[in-house]
């Protein structure tokens, strides 16, 4: 299978599908646009499956590599490849795209073609980010993916969508511009190469390492997002349409974390060690403080948005303890969060489509009218709270285990959030689902239809599979994580 340029296909099929969908034109052809998008998304997903099937788990290096010259003048190459770290995200991304297309099937009635096309194009661009092995190629995908999300939030979003779209765009652009300068600096340091893999071997003195690390940190921290540059996320989430929230939580947040693994740790190992305290501190603040912030939210989407920030805190915490347990736990957490937060946002979308409110106070007793929904929502709430046997547990548990070895108090801090996390999720669940029927809106609710059931069912299977049998996931990443740790352990100062 590896004779085919699978990664290029994974990038360009969704983008081409997006252009085809755009070509269907106005809303008269909306059914056609929907079908094309679903076909495109499924095709794009199928094309990523051979990546998993043909993946050599013993090989920690890059696989399915494609290399050709793009802009010879600056030695920029079209260089793609996946390792155990990035492979899962390509598949996750393709998978989530199907969910998103299905999620907007009935809800989106306005500019259907453009809506679906934006998601398909974004999906392709995100695959580009996860598979780029060239700094500029990575950057180009990284920044280009802002455009579709900007439009998604701004066109199909809620009442404050314009503010949220601008905030989202400018915040993330600010981070990535510094990143661009860092890339150029590395280009000259390495004697004219934008190859990420070559940068992994490049010796750099501590001083520049620190500056580069800070530039990377700002870029990725905004994207993750880490406290205190997280404020764009709740706004973006609240205003985005359901599909936008799903992609934002499931995929876009992973980009920053992925950047740490691809850039910060291996290229700047000494600065990573030097400044790990800073990152750990910020991660702990995100985990503990943001969890408490989530506790007081009255808007369900905001609550899940804050819980996303807390969960991503676990991810960055796991990375910067420099242990296999921590990093693998963080990666599992990233994939799991993709399923769980996607599902949570979809659940909220299901209720919002019916009642047109996201306020917790507007609900109560939903279980009486939507029993099937309540059961599935329960599962995802549990997963969000990190209950054993769900995927949410595995990642957090591994990170906390890693933290215990690293430093007891860090582990203690991280573990408290499991309590708070359970508190805010379950409390929200209780207020929304249980109790007496709160008002006539809730009384008139109809339970989920087949489409919604299928979406939630697939996500539920994924969540449980990962929770009960995480080994296929960790097995894939094992060799690459070990390689990464070897890189991080070797000082680059000469």
């Amino acid at each position, binding site marked *: 299978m590896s004779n085919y340029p699978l990664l290029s296909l994974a990038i360009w099929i969704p983008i081409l599908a997006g252009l085809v969908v755009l070509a269907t034109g106005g809303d008269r052809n909306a059914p056609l646009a929907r079908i094309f998008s679903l076909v495109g998304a499924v095709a794009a997903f199928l094309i990523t499956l051979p990546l998993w099937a043909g993946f050599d788990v013993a090989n920690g290096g890059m696989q399915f590599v494609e290399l050709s010259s*793009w802009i010879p003048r600056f030695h920029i190459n079209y260089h793609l490849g996946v390792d155990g770290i990035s492979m899962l995200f390509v598949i996750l991304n393709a998978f989530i795209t199907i969910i998103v297309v299905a999620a907007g099937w009935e809800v989106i009635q306005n500019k259907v073609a453009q809506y679906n096309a934006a998601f398909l194009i974004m999906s392709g661009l995100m695959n580009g980010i996860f598979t780029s092995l060239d700094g500029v190629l990575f950057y180009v995908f990284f920044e280009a993916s802002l455009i579709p999300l900007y439009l998604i939030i701004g*066109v199909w979003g809620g009442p404050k969508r314009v503010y949220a779209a601008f905030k989202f765009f400018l915040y993330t652009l600010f981070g990535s511009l510094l990143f661009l300068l860092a890339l150029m600096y590395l280009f*000259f340091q390495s004697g004219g190469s934008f190859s990420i893999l070559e940068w992994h071997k490049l010796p750099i003195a501590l001083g520049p390492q620190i500056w580069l690390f800070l530039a990377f940190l700002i870029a990725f921290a905004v994207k993750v997002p880490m406290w205190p540059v997280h404020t764009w996320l709740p706004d973006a989430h609240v205003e985005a349409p359901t599909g936008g929230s799903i992609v934002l939580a499931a995929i876009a947040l992973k980009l920053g974390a992925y950047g740490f693994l691809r850039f910060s740790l291996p290229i700047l190992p000494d600065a990573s060690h030097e400044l790990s305290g800073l990152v750990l501190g910020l991660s702990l603040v995100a985990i503990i403080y943001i969890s408490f912030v989530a506790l007081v939210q009255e808007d369900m989407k905001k609550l899940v948005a804050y819980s996303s920030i807390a969960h991503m805190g676990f991810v960055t915490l796991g990375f910067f303890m420099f242990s296999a347990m921590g990093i693998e736990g963080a990666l599992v957490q990233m994939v799991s969060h993709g399923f769980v937060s996607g599902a949570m946002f979809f659940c909220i979308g299901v209720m919002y489509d019916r009642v047109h409110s996201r306020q917790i106070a507007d609900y109560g007793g939903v279980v009486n009218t939507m029993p099937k929904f309540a059961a599935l929502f329960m599962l995802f709430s549990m997963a969000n709270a990190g209950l054993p046997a769900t995927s949410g547990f595995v990642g957090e548990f591994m990170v906390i285990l890693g933290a215990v070895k690293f430093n007891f108090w860090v582990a203690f801090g991280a573990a408290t959030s499991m309590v708070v996390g359970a508190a805010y999720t379950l409390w929200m669940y209780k207020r929304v689902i249980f109790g007496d029927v709160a008002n006539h809106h809730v009384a008139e609710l109809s339970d989920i239809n087949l489409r919604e059931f299928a979406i939630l069912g697939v996500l539920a299977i994924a969540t449980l599979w990962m929770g009960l049998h995480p080994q296929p996931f960790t097995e894939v990443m094992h060799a690459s994580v070990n390689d990464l740790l070897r890189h991080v352990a070797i000082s680059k100062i000469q």
Partner: protein
Amino acid sequence: MFDNFVVPNLLPAAPEIFLAVMALAILMIDLLVKDSRRTVTFALTQLTLVGCAAIQFFTSTGDVTYTFSNMFVDDLMSDLLKLFLYMTVVIVMFYSRGYIIDRESMNKGEYYVLALFATLGMMVMISANHFLTIYIGLELLSLSLYAMVAMNRDSVLSTEAAMKYFVLGALASGLLLYGMSMIYGATGTLEITGIAERLNDGGVNKSVLVFGLVFLVGGLAFKLGVVPFHMWIPDVYQGAPTSVTLFIGSAPKLAAFAIVMRLLVNGLITMAADWQAMLVILSVLSMAIGNLAAIAQTNLKRMLAYSAISHMGFMLLGIVTGVVGGDPRYALNAYSASMFYVVAYVLMSAGTFGMILLMARAGFEAEEIDDFKGLNKRSPWFAGIMLMLMFSMAGVPFFIGFFAKFSVLQAVIAAGYTWLALVAVLFSLIGTFYYLRVVKVMYFDAPADDTPLVTPLDMRILVSANGLAVAFLGIFPQAIMSLCAYALLRSL
């Protein structure tokens, strides 16, 4: 009596001669053409430009050739810039046509002839190797432009803009001339290559030279439209008829780049440390004021004027970073980055004004940002084109504007001016805001005006091609980048 007269080598100037002859011929022919058949003039103009391009292409030797007693130079840089120039003017004329047909007082043969003369002026500027040649070219360009700005005689705004442009332009020409005379006083020659030789030999009075340089840079800054010599730009961009704004906002940037290269790099490279310091200030100020002031604009043309100021500031960064501490190692890289930036900017600018012209109708200018409200509803295709142009201007990939910024920034970092790169990046971030706002208006807002776009097919095709080119060249920028680098390599 003519014993000493040697016929100069006319070949390097063949396109200029052809254009001059044709412009005069068209002026005569147009007298016989009725208003309703102005297409004849238009077609002749376009054919002339295509002819120029053909002559340029086939007479290009790739070597540096001087002629007219070293007053005129033909090298690969000038060939390439002129080819871009013809292309730009052809596009501009296509875009202008519908607009001026809708506007009685502008639909005259003079419009095309003035544009041709302005083009001739720019060609002379691009190929100038002598202060006088530069000045002649510049005046030919400026005088034609003054007249073009004022062509819409009934408009108070246009007339005012033309007056402002004329008065300030004359002042700038004065500055430039004064600077030139000082440098002449110090070096004893008006020839640009000659000046470089004198300066290399040493023994030139430095204080007179620097004094002259200040005026020279001031004059150039005015023509480029960088802060603090930018005051005319917003008023002229806004006041001029849009088709003329399109012209002013595109092609002359190529010529201005050329004279900056000729004067500062070819002529005064030994003074690099002095003029670089001046250009850094001009550049940072332009990026700051251009981007900040653009945010406050509601008129799209005025916003684009400030954006032009900031873009020219950005372009200057490449010129600033060519020589570091007397070491010209990075010169080629830096200057070609600037050249690529100018070419990219001209393409984007032409496309954006093309969009305004496309939206405009008789009696409706489409020059307010709000006129683009809900364009996505009215015409998703052209909203998409404008979206690409705006993101390209903001420097977001995959569009050519990104690689323009990229190449200049890498030149800045190569030269070790990291702080300058940081400043540039921060102001581009601020700049992104107002481009995003145009996208916002088109996509997020409801249309204020539901009339479908009525535009001739050729205009639609051309604007679309222009927008797609911005995307295509953003994915494949290599060809133009290396062309610029190669041309400069053979010319410096």
